[in-house]
């Protein structure tokens, strides 16, 4: 992706987010979280604006964004379903559950259904390890997710 010129309103919005955090020690992550919250992803065009505000290179900002699993460079589907892949959930059948989700949605991890309704993400532990398999659906925790529960979740998400 070439570094596109930021539309003026995007630039202004990102600059305002940066300004709100500039007084803090280590403002980069709080800024990136807010940008992702505002746009649903961290747009390529936001990087030079952040770099300018923090007095670092765009490459540096890019390096930070790409390091962390949370930051996405494109918008997710309308619903984000995160299924725990970690050990305690595996002990309760998380692998089969994940396979069922992938099959039903027709996507692999990180994929978005063709109709844009659901993005499927892996997550490594939600701290719900005593009631696994666990999932996070649009930020809401769900425990003991069996196939029926999964179907209900995906049904509701319109997939």
């Amino acid at each position: 992706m070439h570094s596109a010129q930021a539309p003026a309103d995007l630039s202004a919005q990102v600059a305002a987010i940066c300004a709100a955090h500039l007084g803090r020690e280590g403002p980069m992550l709080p800024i990136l979280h807010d940008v992702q919250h505002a746009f649903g992803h961290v747009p390529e065009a936001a990087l030079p604006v952040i770099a300018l505000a923090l007095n670092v290179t765009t490459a540096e900002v890019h390096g930070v964004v790409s390091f962390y699993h949370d930051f996405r460079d494109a918008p997710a589907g309308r619903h984000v379903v995160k299924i725990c892949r970690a050990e305690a959930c595996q002990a309760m059948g998380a692998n089969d559950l994940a396979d069922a989700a992938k099959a039903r949605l027709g996507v692999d991890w990180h994929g978005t259904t063709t109709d844009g309704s659901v993005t499927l993400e892996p997550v490594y532990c939600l701290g719900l390890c005593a009631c696994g398999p666990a999932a996070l659906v649009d930020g809401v925790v769900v425990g003991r997710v069996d196939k029926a529960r999964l179907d209900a979740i995906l049904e509701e998400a319109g997939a």
Partner: protein
Amino acid sequence: MTGTRTIYVPRDAAARALGADAVAATLANNPDVTLVRNGSRGMIWLEPLVEVQDGDGPRMAYGPATAADIPAILDGTSDKALGPTDDLPSMKRQTRLTFQRVGVIDPLCLRDYEAHGGLVGLRRALAMSGTEIVTEVTDSGLRGRGGAGFPTGIKWNTVAGAEATQKYIICNADEGDSGTFADRMLMEGDPFTLIEGMIIAGLAVGATRGYVYLRSEYPDAIEAMQEAVEIARTSGLLGDVLGSGRLFDMEIRIGAGAYVCGEETSLLNSLEGKRGVVRAKPPLPALEGFLGKPTVVNNVISLATVPVILEKGAAHYRDFGLGRSRGTIPLQIAGNVRQGGLFETAFGLTLGEIVEDIAGGTATGRPVKAVQVGGPLGAYFPLSKFDTPFGYEEFDGQGGLIGHAGVVVFDETADMLGMARFAMEFCAVESCGKCTPCRIGAVRGVETIDRIGRGDAAAIPLLTDLCETMKDGSLCALGGFTPFPVMSALTHFPDDFAKAKEAAE
């Protein structure tokens, strides 16, 4: 009805994941009861655990409750009745020090907090010198609960002795280990305890600023901590601490989904806004930590245990435990178990007691096959090691580690080759990329295990060699300890690594 009636419905994420919000919704507009969203008592198999209290009477437990159970619970006819919460066998067997208030109080009510022993430790600390506080923590025998088990008092002493214009207290709330949720439960169920612990740490070492680095996977804990910090600030707990003229303030910072950022130097880089790459030590974070300043980095449970140590005295805490593992440990019992959850007890129970007695065996009813203790970098223990007592040195002596005290149980259907493969895959996904044996080795590890899975026994020695290389050539425990789950699976469950071969032949 005489007197007031209080109904407790946990706001803990595990309770919510099992339907607590729907239960609470049926009570929200009921004029006859006061609804309190408490933390969880830790008995996750009983969640949502609803408690009913009339006046000052005992709290009566009901669970696992659904919204449909509420009418019968209110009129006393519910078949979900469990009796007084404090008399439940699982509660009576615990020694709750760090978690004394979790599940008991309204997590965001400072008055409730004080009514249950909160701020006693801080008030005592305010009357002590920094050196005296450090000595008290050292004498308690408290060791870091984040995994490495380093004595907390000794770490604080180093920071206290450093000269600097600014020092920091950083709480590691990244809790990435599978099978662990003690940090989460403490932050959701009793956040003021963590705040109090951080303030005491600040007084001890001369630090006036603190940060909690909290993983983004914990939306409920983030909300609770942020609200608690706001309340603490407006009530004069943070800022000019209880009007003492001593300053301490803190902020909650959110991680971004990288397991390695739980490693303390990677965490510092992340907090500074950089890639979460591990730093070489020395310099120790205690001397050159956040923004190059002397910094205490401690786990949530380490810091949240400090108030009770100051409240009850070092000796009270130290008197619990086994060998060099002093005090209590919040065991987190997870995976395929009948009775999963948090169980705080003195060090020293054997692994067998924990799995068979406290966890009640497997949820599926099938025999136990393996138990992974200490998160994704911890070894898989077979039944033959069930007599290992829960303690730092004791687990180390068996080629394992207790880490953050997660205990994950697997039944006989577990495929240990698959678990070994997952350990390597996880390392490959989460490697910070600094060392070749970790970054490349983990990818090779997955390939090698796949070869073994296809029946190529000649790949087994390759896997063993690769694990040696990773152990020797990794800067941190992600690359360095991934060989523990892999090699323990191979050593203790060789049949799972030979099955595929038989199938191929």
